[in-house]
């Protein structure tokens, strides 16, 4: 490697002399720089998260007050107002705020369009068909357009190359393409609201035969998914090659920050698990457009009529192909979150992570196992008790590495003198919240207790505990943590703490009642929240509790949004290594990092990732590139 390091250094010198300015479009829009692409991913994904959240709040109105007229302007006004505030918060010069402000206004317009249509809300009352659209699109947007692009596209893109000492991703043009294909996927999904019958309405899982006979929105949904799958394929190839090939000299695999390991395993999951869903998507498109019957059994009766299709297919095939992706997808949602949390915990306890090697091996094992647990989503489909027994066993096994990771992170806190800043508060909250999410999964993974719990609100409560106060808290933690790296400024601590405590309390008021309702047997996907069912009556009052908590939580997000956009220009200026961290992203680059090449001098790594409070050192942190 020695000769190459030299040649890189030479290139760097050459570059200094021919430093030319890129045009506005190449610099900020069609950029090939991983940092810009990371920010593009981040802003887009945050906007989609907010849109998915809006859909959920609209659904929660219906669940809390079934049959009451929808007060649309109460939902639109804050978003529109915030859009205008963000637009003008730092003047009207084109910036990230302009894009975000316009997106917020567009979001308000979309909800106005949906809310004022008589097809969705005759006399202001939500129709069940529209509730189904909201349900399907909430799930799709949150998973495929919000959380994964934020966790992988944004954090992976921005932070990972910095942490491994790389000048950029291995394939910068593919990186740009991956963002724009993702963007196209998002646009496609949004377009589906404007076709006859509205957006997809068969749930984010799109189970046939329902989805096969659904309105045009489902076809658009499938096309959107093809875009999103292609985008994540391009991204994951890029991530793996970058991590394997572009590590700085001396940065062996066992010296990688755990965040990089998490992204590495995640990329393999995206690479190998998504193609079967693409295949399934193609088959469903054939069913819908070419009249095939891959997922259609013979003699299916819909509305009293036998469908004219030839039959011979099976709806179970879709479920297998779908969950073959969608279970690894669960780990795509959680692994990057664990990576972010590890960085923040090591940094704020000022101690090495406890059991770094076990964390790494657990993450790899988790990745392998996640490919052979998928059918635990299908215990109730009649696939037989032998297969159920197999998948129940693998499911119990896969909980072990998750427990190892969580335990290692909790033990890491032991004896540390913890700095309770905003990122650390989110990270600390992640641990018990993910713990609840994980533990509530065990009864679902056992095929006998699943008989009672399947398809109830218990399932919803379980996976939302993993993703919402779990992953999304980790993503908030990451945003507060790496904000100074991207902007050179810190986000406001007071506003951050208000945001944290508000969200933390509200999250539990939203999701814990779901577990109670689910145990009482209330089914998911009911548009009236279970009002028609006798067994649901005793827990029906919780619907209002959850809804109010959701709306209050929305108010607390305003603190985050204002803090975020205000701090870009007006936040407190901090040094390059704002948190006194050891990894290369903090210790070897400027804040914000150099436009091209990331590093002043090519870093060389001499030690592990978390050498905090090493006895005999002058500081309580020893950067990875500091010589022995």
């Amino acid at each position, binding site marked *: *490697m020695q000769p*190459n390091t030299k*040649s*890189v250094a030479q*290139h*760097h010198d050459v*570059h200094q002399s021919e430093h030319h300015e890129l045009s506005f479009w190449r610099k900020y829009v069609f950029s090939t720089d991983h940092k810009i692409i990371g920010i593009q991913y981040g802003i887009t994904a945050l906007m989609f998260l907010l849109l998915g959240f809006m859909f959920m709040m609209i659904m929660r109105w219906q669940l809390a007050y079934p049959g009451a007229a929808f007060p649309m302007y109460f939902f639109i006004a804050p978003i529109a107002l915030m859009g205008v505030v963000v637009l003008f918060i730092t003047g009207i010069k084109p910036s990230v705020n302009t894009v975000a402000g316009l997106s917020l206004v567009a979001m308000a317009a979309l909800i106005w369009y949906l809310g004022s249509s008589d097809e969705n809300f005759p006399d202001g009352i939500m129709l069940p068909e529209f509730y189904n659209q909201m349900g399907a699109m909430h799930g799709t947007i949150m998973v495929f357009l919000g959380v994964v692009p934020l966790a992988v596209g944004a954090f992976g893109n921005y932070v990972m190359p910095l942490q491994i000492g790389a*000048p*950029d991703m*291995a*394939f*910068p043009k593919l990186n740009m393409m991956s963002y724009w294909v993702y963007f196209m996927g998002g646009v496609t999904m949004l377009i589906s609201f404007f076709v006859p019958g509205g957006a997809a309405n068969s749930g984010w899982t799109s189970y046939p035969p329902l989805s096969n006979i659904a309105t045009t929105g489902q076809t658009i949904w499938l096309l959107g998914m093809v875009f999103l799958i292609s985008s994540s*394929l391009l991204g*994951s*190839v*890029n991530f*793996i*090659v970058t991590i*394997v*090939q*572009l590590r700085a000299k001396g940065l062996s695999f066992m010296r990688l920050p755990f965040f990089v390991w998490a992204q590495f395993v995640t990329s393999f999951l995206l*690479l*190998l*698990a*998504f*193609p*079967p869903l*693409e*295949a*399934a998507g*193609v*088959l469903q498109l*054939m069913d819908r457009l*070419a*009249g*095939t*019957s*891959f997922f259609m059994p013979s003699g299916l009766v819909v509305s009293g009529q036998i469908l004219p*299709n*030839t039959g*011979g*297919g*099976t709806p179970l*095939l879709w479920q*297998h*192909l779908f969950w*073959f992706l969608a279970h690894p997808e669960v780990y795509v949602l959680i692994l990057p979150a664990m990576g972010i949390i590890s960085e923040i915990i090591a940094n704020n306890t000022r101690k090495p992570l406890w059991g770094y090697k076990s964390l790494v091996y657990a993450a790899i094992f988790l990745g392998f196992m996640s490919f052979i647990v998928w059918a635990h989503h299908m215990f109730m489909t009649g696939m037989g008790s032998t297969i159920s027994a197999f998948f129940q066993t693998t499911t119990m096994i896969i909980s072990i590495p998750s427990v190892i990771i969580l335990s290692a992170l909790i033990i890491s806190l032991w004896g540390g003198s913890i700095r309770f800043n905003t990122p650390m508060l989110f990270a600390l909250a992640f641990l018990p919240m993910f713990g609840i999410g994980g533990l509530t999964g065990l009864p679902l993974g056992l095929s006998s207790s699943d008989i009672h719990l399947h398809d109830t609100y218990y399932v919803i409560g379980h996976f939302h505990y993993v993703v919402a106060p779990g992953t999304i808290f980790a993503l908030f933690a990451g945003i507060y943590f790496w904000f100074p790296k991207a902007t050179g400024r810190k986000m406001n601590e007071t506003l951050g703490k208000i945001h944290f405590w508000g969200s933390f309390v509200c999250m539990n008021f939203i999701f814990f009642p779901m577990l109670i309702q689910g145990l009482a047997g209330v089914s998911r996907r009911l548009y009236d929240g279970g009002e028609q069912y006798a067994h649901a009556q005793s827990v029906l009052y919780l619907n209002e509790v959850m809804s109010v908590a959701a709306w209050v939580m929305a108010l607390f997000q305003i603190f985050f949004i204002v803090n975020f956009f205000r701090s870009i220009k007006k936040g407190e200026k901090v040094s390059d290594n704002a948190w006194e961290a050891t990894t290369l992203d903090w210790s070897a680059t400027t804040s914000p990092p150099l436009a*091209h*090449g*990331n*590093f002043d001098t090519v870093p060389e790594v001499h030690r592990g990732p978390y050498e905090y409070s090493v006895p005999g050192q002058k500081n309580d942190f020893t950067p990875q590139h500091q010589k022995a």
Partner: protein
Amino acid sequence: MEIPYTIETREDTGVNNAKLGIWLFLASEVMLFGALFTTYILLRIGSADDWSQLNDILNVPLATLNTVVLISSSVTMVMSWASLMMKDFKKYKLYMGLTILCSFGFLIIKYFEYSAKFEHHLYPSTNTFLAIYFTMTALHGLHVIGGIIVNTYFWGPGSKMWNTQPERFTNRIEIAGLYWHFVDLVWIFLFPVLYLL
């Protein structure tokens, strides 16, 4: 700052970026076609019909010819890369040209097969066997078209790189070749599974 290892191999991993990238891409392609082959197996096992008789309507001689054409194109693809390794650009042009011709030949034969089916009113919607037959061969055909686009670019405008960065250009042909062999390999599986079994 240049991205390291775009051309030269990294010592401790033994590959350059593009080669690792294409192998990862092919791994995901294996999963894509793997899912479709799995679908084939599941549908065939669950079917009330005897698929070994349903596929009698397919034209085995034409498909055999197509197999020969596609394997030949793989051979010429290797030859085009080998020519570059021997610094013989003219031969590269010849062999790459032949590869592209063979790929077109494959598609033309496939077109005759498809249109014969349509003439007899055999469509994807006719039965589940034809559904999976059309889906898999069409998806494979899309991959052939993708290969033609890439190879034609490297045969035409893309070949200018030979004058400036011969090593990088040779790498590109090797990588295009890996993809092309994969497309070939998929057909080697499709042919017996759909036509013979």
